[in-house]
């Protein structure tokens, strides 16, 4: 249960706003961190905490693209293929990355490690090609560099087990 495990963070979120509903976005992030995605159970929990209808919480989770309504891999690779990055070869980079990992757009590798998606501008246009891995910037990429990072992430995941 989120309320027990993340009591302090939830209270800190509520303390920011005069209205409980405003905490729905920070709480959805906490739920996603705990479950790996925004599951129907997570929606119910967040709705209870924010005193909202679960349908309202679900609409928030659906509207904002950084909440995932289906399970994903351990690492989410969000590759920018918007115009400035594309002018620097991001479309080709994205295709090569998908080929290397053996997945299609939005797909997850068989070992459950990586989910790959293309996204819109991430405010890193001068460092293209680039991506975010679980919301952290990884910039000035080419295939050689990303293969190295992928090895590092795989190794880090093994260590966690």
């Amino acid at each position: 249960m989120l309320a027990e495990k993340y009591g302090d963070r939830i209270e800190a979120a509520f303390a920011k706003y005069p209205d409980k509903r405003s905490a729905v976005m920070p709480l959805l992030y906490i739920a996603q961190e705990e479950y790996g995605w925004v599951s129907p159970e997570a929606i119910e929990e967040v709705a209870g905490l924010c005193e909202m209808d679960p349908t309202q919480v679900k609409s928030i989770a659906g509207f904002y693209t950084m909440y995932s309504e289906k399970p994903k891999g351990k690492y989410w690779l969000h590759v920018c293929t918007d115009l400035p990055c594309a002018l620097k070869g991001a479309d080709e980079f994205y295709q090569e990355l998908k080929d290397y990992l053996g997945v299609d757009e939005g797909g997850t590798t068989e070992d459950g490690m990586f989910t790959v998606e293309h996204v819109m501008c991430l405010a890193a246009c001068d460092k293209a090609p680039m991506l975010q891995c679980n919301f952290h910037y990884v910039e000035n990429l080419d295939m050689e560099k990303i293969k190295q990072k992928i090895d590092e992430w795989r190794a880090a995941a093994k260590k966690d087990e």
Partner: protein
Amino acid sequence: MEHILLRARDIPNIHKFDVYKAHGGYDALKAAVKMKPDEVIDEVKASGLRGRGGAGFPTGVKWSFIPKNEPVKYVAVNADESETGTFKDREIMETNPHQLIEGAMICAYAIQATAVYIYLRGEFWDIAHELDKCIAEAQKEGFIGDNVLGTGWDCPMYTHLGAGAYICGEESALLESLEGKLGQPRVRPPFPAQKGGGLYGEATVVNNVETLTNVPWIINNGADKFKAIGTEESAGTKIFCVSGHVQKPGNYELPMGTTFRELLYDHAGGPPDGREFKGILPSGGSGPIVPATDEVLDTPLSYEDMQKIGTILGSASVIVMDDTVDMTWVASKVTKFFKHESCGKCTPCREGTYWLDKVIDRILAGEGKPSDIQLIDNVAKNMAGVTLCALGDFAANPIIHTIKNFPDDFNQHVQPAE
């Protein structure tokens, strides 16, 4: 000249509280709270500072709209930076965060706000957590929170992370999102600065990161000194985000009125070897594209001069295309962006972006007819000006202006008329 905003380029480690303070940090806030709130507003008005988020509205005038006698008022800092090609607010927050915080507190004092919210796009996850630490440091020294600098005025500051929606950079959608709702624009009036139009229905100033980061410099150096930089109608410096086909992409903080030629050749190093500039998007995806003619290259980058060449300064996210680029492909990329980012509230934008994308895909696949070009032009023209926010106009721009300025790029894809 020394940077006003990107000061980390002159002073290493200015992101650290102690270094910032050692270089006059928070002196402007100390000076401001000794002034009457209205005097602070007048100083910012006199400086000629205009909103750096894109619209260019005079900042001091915006502050002066806030009613004086309301008990609850807010400042919302727009750190949603999501316009294609824009990466300036990110650098400010990463390398000079305390100057933003100080500017936001001066604004809060000027309107006697009861709280400040910094709304960051969700992808600025790490930046938000660093900002939280900066806020805590400043609060410990009495610059934020209860009884700010012994004035008896209370004003906490909080960060709030969005979660992936371009539209939340639109001020009324940003406020909806802060309230825990879908980020969709509101019907105006009432405007955010009015009772009933702002956050939780209270009067609210919404200002961009770059705008507020200018404010401490204005208080420290005076409005006249700020107004002396730039052009008649565009005071101060501007951070130009240069991306695409240049040798040295990056942020360049330069006086307003710098020409495209100086920006793109002297600072950004010119086009890749052996190539020439073909087209420029001066304000990310949302402003009209212009051809890289001599006339355009010699145009000063200011609010007033950009209008003369049929485009806007906007957020000054300058995306540059060289002569290898097919502008139909550019129009398609930008259209896909707006199709993805349309919030779905207004029919012309929601449906228009969908159909524009579908027809341009058809044209790019070589299956288009000459009438398809008129069709998308017509669809785009029927989206502009008929939606609650400017996204409808933004989405129409890449179509209307690419067809106008680069007709051959479109015509080459369609079968000749019989």
